[in-house]
Each structure stands twice: as structure tokens, then as C-alpha cells.
């Protein structure tokens, strides 16, 4: 009997250790993620010669229940020229420019290229519900309202 009890105790301890390791792993992951988020975005050009796309400016605001993403889309005539793909953790925006843009005096290789579209891939800081996403296009600025995927429970005060 004592032997059996010892085995079960050992098993119990082992599970505790695994649990602790799991907790540690999660904490480390969170810390590492926070550490890398604090780095500035690496520099990359705001244009792509191969796809003939320019990258528009964007901004993410956050409220309790939704993420509000705005994207500056100059030279885009109306909403029919914009395509938005929303997934739980990102949105992708493609918009066709009213007329192709070419800057003859700018750069060395860029001057040869006509840019036809604006394209932006935005990684979202939180998971969203893409089915309930809403968009509005006004004065050349696209506003996306993306409800966060979260469940809220009301906590009752018993005493």
C-alpha cells in the first residue's frame, strides 16, 4: 500500500511540474512578443515595382468592442474601386487608382513605372469577427469597423 501511495504522489508532482512549465512557457512567449512589438517597424519601401502598387497610410484605433482601421486612399474615385478582404487576424485592401501615377523625376528605377493600385496588408492586434465588419469610404479615407471577437460575461455582485 505505501508503495502505491508513493507512485500516485509522484504522478501528482509530475503533473504539477508540467503545469508550471506550461505556465512558464506562456509567460515567456508573452514577454518575447511584447519585446518584439516594442521594436520600430523595419524600413521597407512604400511601393512595389513588380505589382505596380503603392502602399497607403493606415491607422488603427481601438475601442472596448471594436478595432477602427482607417486607410488613406487618395486618387481612388469611389467605393466600387476598392476591394476589402477581412480575416480574423488581418485585413487586406486593394484599390484601383483613378489614373495611373508616374513620377518622371523621382528615383532611378521608379521613374519608369506607372503605379496603378494601392495595396495594404494590415495585421490586426486582436482577433475580429469578419462577418460583422463594416466599411465606409468618405473624402478619400476608408474607415473599417471591425468588432472584436470576445465573449463578455456580466459579473453579479452577490453581497
Amino acid at each position, binding site marked *: 500500500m505505501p508503495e502505491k501511495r508513493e507512485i500516485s504522489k509522484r504522478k501528482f508532482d509530475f503533473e504539477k511540474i508540467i503545469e508550471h512549465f506550461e505556465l512558464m512557457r506562456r509567460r515567456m512567449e508573452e514577454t518575447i512578443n511584447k*519585446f518584439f512589438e*516594442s521594436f520600430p517597424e523595419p524600413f521597407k519601401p512604400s511601393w512595389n515595382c513588380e505589382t505596380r502598387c503603392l502602399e497607403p497610410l493606415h491607422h488603427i484605433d481601438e475601442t472596448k468592442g471594436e478595432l477602427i482601421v482607417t486607410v488613406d486612399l487618395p486618387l481612388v474615385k469611389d467605393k466600387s474601386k476598392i476591394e476589402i478582404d477581412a480575416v480574423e487576424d488581418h485585413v487586406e485592401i486593394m484599390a484601383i487608382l483613378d489614373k495611373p501615377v508616374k513620377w518622371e*523625376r523621382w528615383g532611378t528605377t521608379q521613374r519608369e513605372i506607372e503605379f496603378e493600385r494601392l495595396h495594404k496588408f494590415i495585421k490586426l492586434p486582436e482577433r475580429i469577427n469578419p462577418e460583422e465588419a463594416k466599411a465606409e469610404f468618405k*473624402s*478619400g*479615407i476608408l474607415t473599417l469597423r471591425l468588432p472584436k471577437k470576445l465573449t463578455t460575461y456580466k459579473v453579479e455582485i452577490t453581497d
Partner: protein
Amino acid sequence: MKIDQRMPVWAAKNIYGNRDTKNVVIHLHPVGRALLAKKLRFLLGPFIIYLIEKKSLGGNNLSTEELIEIHEIEKIDFPEPPNVLIGVPDVGLVGIISASHLVTIFEDLREYAHVESSLFPPVVVVHKGKPSPPIRIYASTKDTPLLLIVSEIPIPPDSIHELSEALVNWLEQKNPNYIISLGGVGVPNRLEIEKPLVFAIGSNEKAESIINEKKIEIFEEGMIIGPYAALMHCFQKRDMINIALLAQSHMKYPDPGAAASILEAVGTILDVEIDIDALLQRAEEIRLRTRDLMRDTGRTMDQMQKEREYQVPAFYG
């Protein structure tokens, strides 16, 4: 070697070794800046400060004139006191868009002086095949003399005080008439505003009376952060007439509409006609062209906690 206050010394040594690096000012690497800006500063901050104190040779003790040089390309004698306009990248790029438009429409505005400093990143901008430093001063002597101070790069936050001091010292010698800062103030509901309003802040009583006389709305309460704030402070100390014009603007998107409102206000103050039609017609193209500068300026504004301009000042009465 002059070491930026927040510069880890080991990085300085890696870059410069044992060479004679007199007058070299080293800026903190973006990664280091991010580390210091975030929570990790508690971990690394004391260590870095210890190293700097131990190794730096007395810190940065150069005078403003030694740090920032304003190099005049030609000698101009102004027949009467010039008016001065200042347009640097800030909220909605209002300043630089307005300044750029003025250079386009006033053909007699020509490059007059360059602002050079080791505090600025090593950048040369090339226009029509001609390289020039990104912070420049244009001048026009036709009719009423005008000086236009322009920057094509966001002013590095670490250099704002020195640059303001140097510009004010230099301007004082030119005996200017009005000094007008062309800026914007971020409004969250900009999309609902068709024609942005312009607000003004005056550095002294004379400036305030001009604002009232020209019927420009006074910026009653609030905060301004960044280059225009530092300049206003310097002008106020010397009792020079500085009017900071702030148009309602997008905070982080280029706003040619706000720039047009600012230019209208400048026209009212200086009694000159400024054609803004071309600016409004090219508004969308300007928004597209200035994306990169806006992105860089946005990062600089984050470093200065520019969004605190939305706050209400605590002092009440």
C-alpha cells in the same frame, strides 16, 4: 567624443573605435530607442546611464552656434524688415505642404541659406538634379521681403531645442517683422469638416492684437507639442512677434485642405493674395506623394507623445 545622453557607449565604441571623434554626435539606434521608450527602460536604463556617465567625456557642451550652422549661400540686404514663414513636418504635414506650394507659386523665392548640423541625420535631398540639405531657408526681396524656413525631414526630437535657439538667434539679426508658424492641430472628426478652421496663438501683445485685428480665431486652451512649441517659447523670451497658425487637420494623414486654410490665413495677415486653387486641385496627388514623409513624421510625433495635444491642460481658472 560627444555622446548623446541616451547612447549606449558600447555601440559608440563599436562604430567609432579609437579614432579621434571630436565633434561627433551619435544618435541612439532605433532599437535602443524603442527599448528605452518601453517598459524595458527600467531594466536597461540604469545600466546604460551608468556606462554613459562612466565613459562620456564631460557630455555635450558645444554651444548652439557650434552645433547648428546656418550657412548663407548669398548676401541679401533686405530693404525692409522681412516677414518670416516657418513650415516643418508636423500634424497633417500642413507646414511643409503650404511651404512647398508657396515655393511653387512665388517664382522669386530662391534658396538663400542652409541649416546644417551633426544633430540631423545625414540626408541630402535632390531636386532637379541639384543636391541640398533638407532644412533650408528661401528668400524673396520682391515687393515685401519674405523668408521661408522649410524642412523636408521630421525635426529629430533631440535637436528641436538647439534648432529653435539657432533659428531665433539668426532671425533676430535679420530684424523680422511678423514670424508665422504654419501648423495643424489634430481633430478626430476631421472627416466631417469641409473647410478646416484656423486658430492662432500669439507670442506677445502685439501678436495678439494682429490676430484680433485680422479676425482669426484665438486658440484659447490646449497644448502644442513639438518644433512650433519650442520656437514659440524662444520668440516669446525675446519679445519677437510670432503667430502660430494651427488649422484643423488629420493627425497622421497629409492634409492639403488644412494647408489651403492656413495659406488663406497667411494671406489675410500679410495682406497678400495667395492662389490656393492649384493646391486644392492637386490635393489627392499631394496626399499620395507625401505618404513617406507622413509615415516618418508620425513616428517622430509618437516619440514626442504628440497625441497629448488632445488633452485639456490641468490648470484651470
